């Protein structure tokens, strides 16, 4: 029974999404109850399945009782179970936060469709993490791109429609190039199941090298459009800054990461590290990642609007992750996976606290943050935890991911990227530290010196505090997560 928990996880998320419009006519609390129950089930079941996988063994489920080459297969191993826990836990916190925050962002009659879209988004993300079938991954990718545009355009404002349409156009081009890549791989392998393809990838590589090269080119371009890798990130700032806060938190801390997971699956599970290295792809990835780290931070410096600044800093942090992947080593991959999780928590802390500031003080311009630390101490403390983590100050999860990345770089013997990380961390400091300084050291107009807890609804403060605790605890005891990541990396590079 426990073996089938991930599938129930998916079906419960989908059933909740489908049932919400039926209830949405009634009062909002009914939707809140259903969503909380569904999210509790999703998080608990993913934790149980992770524990099962770690203690006993990874396994795979094929629908319809067929063999893996015939039916669709879901693999539940350390890699997919770990990220299922990451997605459901973080999404649970963001959804609890959104119960109060959403009332300020969208109209009364839209609550039902908002939570329907969020739950379908979660269904698609969990599906993409578990699936071991190329076309099934494409179907979930389409659902993901449709719902992530829909949760942006749900806010009835001109800028949102424009941002959603640009995002949709670029996202569809990304999905189409991924589908073209899948078609090319299917043309020469005849299989859609990742396991089957990886078995015969070597002699395909001998017979039709051209196919693999063009297929990888299409898939990597498509996935980097969707993961907002530097040169193809143009849609991200508008999309993430106009969206309602819970949506932009979901988008930049989880949705972007799911495409990173898909890239890792494709590069390591389907094609295999040796063919990818023989194709000279890793140097390209690392150069593009380094470019993204620098340029993303430079763009972020010039921003006045807090959300737009956080969006640009996401582009830079994606660069860190792809740098880890590009090193093609076990150490590099575990650094990338660690940063996926640590950045997920840090970025959601930043976005949720920015949302709390907009909710409470209705201020988006960074210049007006003076003395905010006294009026909103809890929010600003969590904000500075995450911001210091982003800069890489020891004691927060950001430092640990940079540390693992440095170790991987030294091991890979490419010291040039040490400089890139230092420059990028310095640039991060240039745009994060002034906010903390102005919030705590400068005084606002009334010169309020006494620190009193702000009157934010509890359902917004509790998730913030939990995320803050997680950031600090990963910072001090990275082994909490690193043990799972090492298992996950072992399944990828065996």
């Amino acid at each position: 029974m426990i073996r089938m928990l991930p599938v129930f996880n998916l079906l419960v998320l989908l059933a909740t999404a489908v049932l919400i419009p039926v209830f949405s006519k009634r009062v909002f609390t009914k939707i809140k109850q259903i969503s909380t129950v569904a999210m509790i089930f999703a998080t608990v079941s993913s934790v149980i399945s992770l524990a099962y996988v770690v203690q006993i063994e990874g396994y795979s489920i094929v629908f319809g009782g067929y063999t893996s080459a015939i039916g669709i297969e879901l693999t539940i191993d350390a890699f997919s179970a770990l990220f299922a826990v990451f997605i459901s836990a973080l999404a649970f916190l963001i959804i609890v936060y959104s119960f109060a925050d959403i009332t300020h962002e969208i109209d009364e009659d839209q609550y039902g469709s908002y939570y329907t879209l969020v739950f379908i988004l979660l269904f698609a993300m969990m599906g993409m993490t578990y699936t071991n079938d190329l076309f099934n991954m494409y179907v979930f990718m389409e659902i993901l791109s449709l719902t992530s545009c829909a949760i942006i355009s749900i806010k009835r404002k001109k800028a949102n429609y424009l941002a959603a349409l640009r995002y949709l156009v670029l996202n569809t081009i990304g999905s189409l190039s991924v589908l073209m890549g899948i078609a090319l791989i299917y043309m020469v392998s005849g299989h859609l199941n990742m396991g089957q393809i990886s078995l015969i990838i070597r002699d395909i590589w001998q017979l039709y090298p051209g196919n693999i090269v063009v297929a990888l080119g299409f898939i990597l371009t498509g996935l980097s459009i969707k993961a907002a890798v530097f040169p193809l990130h143009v849609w991200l700032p508008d999309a993430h800054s106009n969206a309602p806060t819970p949506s932009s938190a979901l988008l930049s801390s989880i949705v972007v990461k799911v495409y990173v997971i898909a890239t890792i699956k494709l590069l390591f599970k389907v094609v295999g590290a040796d063919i990818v290295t023989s194709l000279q792809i890793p140097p390209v990835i690392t150069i593009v990642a380094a470019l993204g780290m620098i340029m993303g931070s430079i763009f972020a410096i010039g921003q006045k609007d807090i959300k737009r600044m956080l969006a640009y800093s996401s582009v830079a942090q994606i660069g860190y992750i792809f740098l880890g992947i590009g090193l093609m080593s076990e150490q590099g991959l575990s650094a990338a996976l660690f940063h996926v999780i640590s950045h997920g928590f840090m970025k959601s802390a930043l976005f949720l606290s920015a949302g709390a500031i907009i909710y409470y003080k209705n201020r988006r311009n960074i210049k007006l943050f003076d003395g905010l630390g006294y009026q909103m101490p809890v929010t600003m403390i969590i904000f500075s935890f995450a911001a210091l983590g982003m800069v890489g100050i020891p004691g927060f999860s950001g430092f640990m991911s940079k540390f693992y990345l440095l170790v991987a770089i030294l091991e890979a013997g490419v010291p040039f990227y040490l400089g890139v990380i230092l420059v990028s961390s310095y640039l991060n400091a240039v745009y994060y530290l002034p906010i903390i300084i102005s919030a705590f050291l400068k005084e606002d107009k009334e010169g309020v010196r006494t620190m009193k807890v702000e009157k934010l609804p509890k359902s917004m403060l509790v998730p913030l505090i939990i995320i803050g605790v997680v950031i600090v605890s990963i910072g001090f005891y990275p082994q909490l997560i690193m043990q799972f990541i090492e298992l996950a990396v072992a399944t990828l590079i065996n």
Partner: protein
Amino acid sequence: MDDLIVKTITRLIVPFIQLYGIYIVLHGHLSPGGGFSGGAILGASMILFTLSFGLEEAKKKVPHRISMLVETGGILWYIGVGMIGFISVGVLWGNKIAGFDLGEPGRLLSAGMIPLLTLAIGAKVASTMITLFHTVIEEDE
């Protein structure tokens, strides 16, 4: 668009189009077509009806509540058929394994769960097309 000729012709044609659509959906597992194409034909018949008789008339025929229930019902029905396989054998969406009677190939009521799923898909595609069309038209007024 309340031209008499168009209305009478539509009143004549629409039932036959819908009959043809239902035929395609029901024969999904025997002849080409199936859930998607049959549902599209059914959807097209209702769009023709909306075009010729106007939105209010069509709204009475396919009110928002009904189409919402078909949307939700379609997915729950699909998951339910999957769960039958799980309850009996522990395998989701199993057909022969889950004890569905396959019947004799070539007959209408054969192939176990396939007609059940094709019906769900056909209803869903039809109601999606109709609701999309009505939502877009409603917006223009």
